[in-house]
């Protein structure tokens, strides 16, 4: 194949599939416009780690901004001005409260909901709408996807999970309603395709409009069919059909608004091949996708689960061949606690990577981290005792200028975690009234 180029023409190898660093996509006029508004969009993400954290290596000894960085937070040294450690928060409904064992299941289920999960293996599963979904219900219409749920682990494929609780509880962090858990997507390739490959990249407006018309006619048939079926259904069947109908509606709404964000600047990230063998690579790819989703405004709300609650994952890459859950019941054995600390540090390293990427992503005069509220933590403090009253909670980002990170803040013991969530929802401009368990707003964040 010959190439004829005129005198001043330079051919640069575009389109060769190299993973180029993310450029400032906001330079594109289509995307820069909304960002320049006074009320810049704020992003919100909740990152979850299971099995508790070895709290002595997590909690700083001093309060305020001059605290000494504890070992587990060391990977975040370069970002210490960008996050706060909030100590003393608890999630009451993760406790047994008469429901007996099952702390791992309850922990994950109540973390973002503040609701006591109903103890059932399957019939009538019940939890509560989670904070991310409250935000998504209020604001999700502004973006292509109301929210994004990702994680490294699939739901468990067989067997039982935790003490009479359906496996749904210990693998789900987001609940759309009190009876609808939202599964996580795990495969970076599949996530990329869903978020960024709606139709051929760059397809013409005309082709797209035609495709949208066909999509609608397919959905119309599905809706008609659903309405015909609705007639003779019992209550729990109707609930399932309602789930179906609201999913259809969400897709329809997306067709309405997809033209805006589609350009996306997505070509700047190479489409992932699938799930990497290496766990760290997997987490980083998921983090990359989340950054890209925020950057392109595909969504503003996300949950990201590093591992399912009660995870028995081993960490050979950091020389911890034992299972995480087993180690978390350390029985105060210093050797086990040390290994637990290594796992905790491994996870904060991944957090540091994610926060670093957000910070490095410019948006107008600011950066993505400054425009985000990133919560990192879990619903168990000391895993040995399944403590739900002293949770490891880290809040990063400036929330578009509404948060002042950089400190270690202590609260009265057992202050409801939902107070923090209510404060975050306020900043998002979503109504926080429906959050249970709140006793007020969290000051000092």
């Amino acid at each position: 194949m010959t190439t004829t180029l005129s005198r001043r023409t330079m051919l640069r190898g575009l389109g060769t599939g190299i993973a180029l660093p993310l450029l400032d996509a906001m330079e594109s006029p289509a995307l820069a416009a909304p960002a320049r508004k006074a009320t810049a969009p704020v992003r919100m993400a909740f990152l979850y780690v299971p099995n508790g954290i070895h709290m002595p290596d997590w909690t700083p000894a001093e309060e305020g901004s001059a605290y000494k960085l504890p070992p587990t937070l060391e990977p975040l040294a370069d970002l210490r001005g960008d996050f706060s450690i909030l100590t003393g928060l608890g999630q009451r409904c993760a406790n047994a409260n008469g429901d007996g064992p099952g702390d791992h299941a309850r922990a994950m289920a109540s973390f973002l909901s503040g609701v006591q999960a109903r103890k059932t293996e399957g019939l009538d599963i019940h939890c509560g709408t989670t904070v991310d979904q409250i935000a998504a219900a209020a604001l999700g219409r502004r973006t292509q996807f109301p929210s994004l749920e990702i994680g490294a682990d699939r739901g468990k494929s067989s067997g039982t999970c935790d003490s009479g609780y359906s496996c749904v509880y210990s693998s789900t962090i987001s609940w759309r309603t009190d009876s609808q858990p939202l599964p996580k997507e795990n495969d970076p390739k599949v996530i990329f395709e869903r978020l960024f490959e709606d139709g051929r990249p760059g397809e013409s407006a005309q082709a797209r409009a035609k495709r949208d018309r066909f999509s609608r006619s397919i959905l119309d048939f599905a809706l008609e069919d659903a309405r015909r079926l609705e007639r003779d259904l019992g209550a729990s069947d109707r609930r399932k059909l309602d789930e179906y109908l609201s999913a259809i509606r969400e897709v329809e709404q997306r067709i309405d608004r997809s033209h805006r964000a589609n350009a996306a600047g997505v070509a700047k990230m190479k489409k992932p091949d699938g799930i990497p063998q290496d766990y760290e690579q997997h987490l980083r790819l998921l983090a990359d996708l989340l950054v890209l989703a925020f950057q392109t405004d595909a969504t503003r709300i996300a949950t990201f689960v590093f591992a399912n609650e009660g995870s028995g994952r081993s960490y050979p890459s950091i020389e911890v061949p034992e299972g995480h859950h087993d180690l978390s019941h350390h029985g105060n054995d210093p050797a086990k606690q040390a290994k637990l600390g290594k796992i905790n540090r491994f996870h904060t390293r991944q957090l540091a990577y994610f926060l670093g990427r957000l910070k490095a992503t410019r948006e107008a005069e600011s950066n993505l981290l400054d425009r985000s509220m990133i919560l990192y933590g879990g619903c168990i403090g000391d895993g040995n005792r399944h403590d739900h009253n002293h949770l490891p909670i880290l809040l990063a980002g400036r929330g578009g200028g509404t948060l002042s990170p950089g400190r270690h803040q202590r609260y009265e013991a057992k202050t409801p975690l939902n107070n923090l969530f209510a404060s975050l929802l306020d900043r998002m401009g979503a109504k926080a009234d429906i959050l249970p368990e709140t006793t007020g707003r969290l000051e000092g964040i």
Partner: protein
Amino acid sequence: MAFRIARLGLLAFALVPRPGATTFADSYDADVRPILEKYCFDCHSGDRAEAGITLDAYRESRAKTHERKAWVKVLRQLEGRAMPPDDADQPTRDESAAVERWITGYALVPDCSKGERPGRVTVRRLNREEYNNTVRDLFGIDIRPADDFPSDEIGYGFDTIGDVLSIPPVLLDHYIDAAEVVARAVIASTDAEAAPARPIEGGRLNSTGQFTRDIDIAEEGNYVLRVMAWGDQAGPEPCRMVIGIDGKPRRKADVPNGPGAPLEYDVKLRLDRGKHQIAVAFLNDFYDKAEKDPKKRDRNLAIDRITLAGPVGILPTTLPTSHIRFFSRPIEPTADLTEQTDQLKAILTPVASRAFRRPVTNDELDGLGAVFFAARREGETIERAAQLTLSALLVSPSFLLRFEGDPPPGRIRSLNDYELAARLSFFLWSSLPDDELFRAAARGEVHTPEQLAAQAKRMLRDPKATALVKNFAGQWLQLRGLDEVKPDPKRFPTFDADLRTAFRRETEEFFSHIVREDRSVLEFLDADYTFVNERLARHYGLADVKGEAFRRVSLDTSKRGGLLGQASILTVTSNATRTSPVKRGKWILENLFAAPPPDPPPNVPELDGNGAKLVGTLRQRMEQHRADPSCASCHKLMDPLGFGLENYDAIGAWRDRDGEAAVDSGGELPDGRRFQGPAELRAILAARKDEFRRCLIEKLLTYGLGRGLEYYDACAVERIAAASAAEGDRFSVIVAEIVQSPAFRQRESGADIK
């Protein structure tokens, strides 16, 4: 709150005598009431009972009906040690146990004299396996589109439970994508998307200039040239380009879109066989040195990619079988659109009926026809319009969800032949009914017990019954968990992907053998044979097995036998670095005897809370742990079973030593029986036929019905167990009894006493 009958099993296994019902009834006055009076009546009696729980108004006639719920609550509170509250007097362990025993052994045991209740199954969406199999069997294409779907929710250990399988928006996105993928695989079309596409490298034009590319066309026809372009915009006008072929300009276009937002610019071409030259030229270079903003200084055109798709409008010479089958009668391109739509509806009728697992209705056909008509009116080809119609069908709830209409409140309804056919096929094949079953349903020949049993028997012999191995056995025995185990490579250097696969294959072959040969299910416990290939034989220390293929071998039963000698199960119940006798014991109780041990107390006591360090071998440390009375009562059920398997390491290889120490695989069961080593343990377990049989029936029922079992299902389980025992416990007998049971053949309406 639902109550699983499985719990009853624990008591049986713990060998607590199960007295006759009258003894239990009598024992209320003698044993239960005094305890409740002492600890509970203060708050839970009279008109102002707390939480509405009144325990002093017990009447025997109501215990099993209206008061069931209350007793379930009492049981939960006692099990969780949540009641009485901490500041009140606490019952002794024996007192709690007496009340628990009475509740589980009497109050919650159903009265079977009035027949079996069918229960109610919540509408089920297809799970991933079912979606893949259904597409395969409906169209004859095995493309597994559901592998990309999010994982299915698990309830009661299985992914077939309607109550937990949810339909989130993300799944609908996947359904829509999968429908398009399936439709394009089933039907060949002639649009540019379906045509062969060749990529042509792009580039960047910084000044007025052009690319040319030589191409070789093998087949004369219509092509679409697609240029993905964007520009650095500067100056008063947008980037402008011209696309040409063989020296002739064909399309002049403005390219106003900027970096990060490439758009495609299409040109339709008619090309002869032979060599051609494509050219893209940048027409309006611009450079303004004076411009302050460097981004607005220089206008450049960037071509990300050029694709030539075609020839379009020509169907491939070899059409897929699915395409030929779909167009069983042609749609006349010359007929008017209404007539074409009628023709489509005619050929779609059998497809849609199969897909919906019942005759498609006229309303539905009209709706599908409307999709076709709209696409045709927009100028799409017949094939493309048919693809879109197929997509609509595959996204519709009648395809994705399995509906069974409810009877009026309080009534019971027999399922119709189509509903029964679907229940059969999803139970045994994880797929839709085949032609034979569907035709039998159309003739009304699937509803008598004999017809159901005969179909089930036929279906178990069909190769599609491997779904039962993959999906039922894969979950019952937790073989699916093998994908997630990561034995420590330092301690277990022989473990690799091949061995992992071999572990699963062994148990699948073993299970298939019992199904296919219709063996006694008791062989699960004590078969003296198994299936190995060379790799697994080496792992087990068996000689003379060569090659990749699995074959049946006889076992030295002093070393192995039954499921509990299989590395798959021994591995999924181990930790990464060592065996876990507790997990193995728990696995046996849960999965072989339906007797799950009570869960650990909510706050795990710290093992060295009083400063005493646990020392010694794993086994010695566990025995010290059991010295704690709050742990002992359950661990004495689990641990000995696990100790009996200590001759198998964490990947199921035989061992006589664990590190420095000799393996001690002896133990004593709660009933005082002692054993030495896995063979003796196996003999003891194999004698527990009744519990095992009941357990397998419960698991199969749960999986097959798609709901958790309720207390009243104990009646069906007992009846099926008796029938199975009477006929040599052959696998087909259990399946036949299940599909003939009221739970399988009928449904009741939602109003339920839970």
